[in-house]
């Protein structure tokens, strides 16, 4: 059971922000890596033989899809830990929530950059291919997950509900992917997508991509730490308001009986 007074002590001992030494180091490393990514992605790496400069979209697109999936894996794992763990920890629930928020944002970036690249390369924004369609449904499902997190209720209720929804999404993904793949395999144009693998990656392009993945992983770490701490603080503020309200109610009772 949650006790209130120790948390109140915790509030007064909290720093004014969500930064710590560790997050500042990660933050600086992220900035450096993103600068590197810009340097390699925009300047040093060559344009593609067939696709020209549009290939550079890949240096944002691939790392952001990686980050989004990483975020959703973290959400799923944290949901499972919350639900099956003995403590039903609210801490992991907040990490799950923070991670899902970041995942949704970067999934949007993935879809947007993917569509731009598709328009340039294939002449269309959208292809009904298994990966794209699964990604889009995943995106919508996590928006639903975040909506469930926003429902009324206590912190424990929120945590339990959203953990269940978080795990149901995991159940959904392979089925969606399987169905879309089976569906598109009936259509020959599915092979068009092969082109994005046809990009002949030379050493420098591969290295730029690698820099991007590292930069975005650090960015994820930095964001998830800050966001989950922010969520913790929001919950603590809720607890403190509650504490005040309890005191107020008691005073109200005292006045009534004085």
């Amino acid at each position, binding site marked *: 059971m949650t006790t209130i007074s120790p948390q109140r002590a915790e509030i007064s001992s909290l720093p004014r922000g969500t930064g710590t030494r560790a997050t500042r180091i990660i933050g600086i490393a992220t900035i450096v890596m993103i600068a590197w990514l810009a340097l390699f992605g925009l300047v040093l790496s060559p344009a593609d033989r067939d696709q020209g400069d549009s290939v550079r979209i890949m240096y944002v697109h691939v790392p952001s899809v990686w980050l989004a999936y990483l975020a959703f894996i973290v959400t799923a794992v944290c949901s499972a830990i919350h*639900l099956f763990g003995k403590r039903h920890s609210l801490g992991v629930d907040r990490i799950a929530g923070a991670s899902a928020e970041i995942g949704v944002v970067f999934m949007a970036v993935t879809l947007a950059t993917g569509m731009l690249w598709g328009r340039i390369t294939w002449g269309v924004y959208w292809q009904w291919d298994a990966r794209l369609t699964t990604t889009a*449904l995943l995106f*919508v*499902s996590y*928006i*639903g997950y975040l*909506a*469930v997190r926003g*429902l*009324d209720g206590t912190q424990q*209720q929120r945590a*339990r*509900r959203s*953990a*269940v*929804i978080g*795990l*149901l999404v995991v*159940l*959904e993904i392979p*089925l*969606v992917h*399987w*169905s*879309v793949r*089976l*569906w598109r395999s*009936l259509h020959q144009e599915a092979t068009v997508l092969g082109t994005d693998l046809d990009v002949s990656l030379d050493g420098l392009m591969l290295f730029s991509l690698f820099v991007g993945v590292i930069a975005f992983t650090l960015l994820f770490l930095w964001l998830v730490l800050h966001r989950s701490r922010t969520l913790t603080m929001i919950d603590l503020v809720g607890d403190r308001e509650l504490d005040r309200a309890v005191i107020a109610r008691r005073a109200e009772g005292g006045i009534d009986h004085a």
Partner: protein
Amino acid sequence: MAEVSRLAIARAMFVKDVRVEIRSRVVAHQILPFAALVMVLFAFALDATNVLTRVAPGLIWLAVLFSMIIIVQRTFAVEATDGALEALQAAGVDPVPVYWGKWAALVTQLLVLELLLIVTAIVLYGIEVRAGGIVLLVTTAISATCGLAAVGTIYGGLAAGVSGRETLLPLLVLPVASPVLIGATRAVEAALGTGGTAIAEGWPWLGLLSVFAVAFGVGGSFAFGPLIED
């Protein structure tokens, strides 16, 4: 206290839901006409007979999905109006058989709905059911319905309690149900021979639909309790 068998609770739940529908006729008098109306509206939107025949299987399942959302809202509104779902919780009734009882009632209602929609498609869109495709058609309808009802009942439970959650239902249900829409549409196309598809092409989809039904049936058994818990 005597341990009550899960089967007895599920049966009581199922009988109760069917009785409520027989008495109130909300599905029969409001939701089935709505579904038929949707089929008419599709015909207005896709103004060409040959197009309609071609896409009829997909339209049938779309109409099923939309109508299911309303049926789920209705069947959980029945639970919420006088606080029955809450009372079941308050009485410590095992949520797993409650889930299965409501699931079974939803399956029954959806099968009636699908029968009506297929007849509507025969009449309005001119589709033809060939003799060889009937087995595939029926097995597809049953397995797709089992999966849809499993999903609908899970999220219906979540949306039941507090008002204002109903608007969340389509956002949660439709993405999850999309494999059923894809699979059931393709399987019915094969059963009807739409666009020259062979019946044999339908069977792989049945595998998908069955796995889906089992996955969400099992998932729902675990998820329903925590979702309706206050």
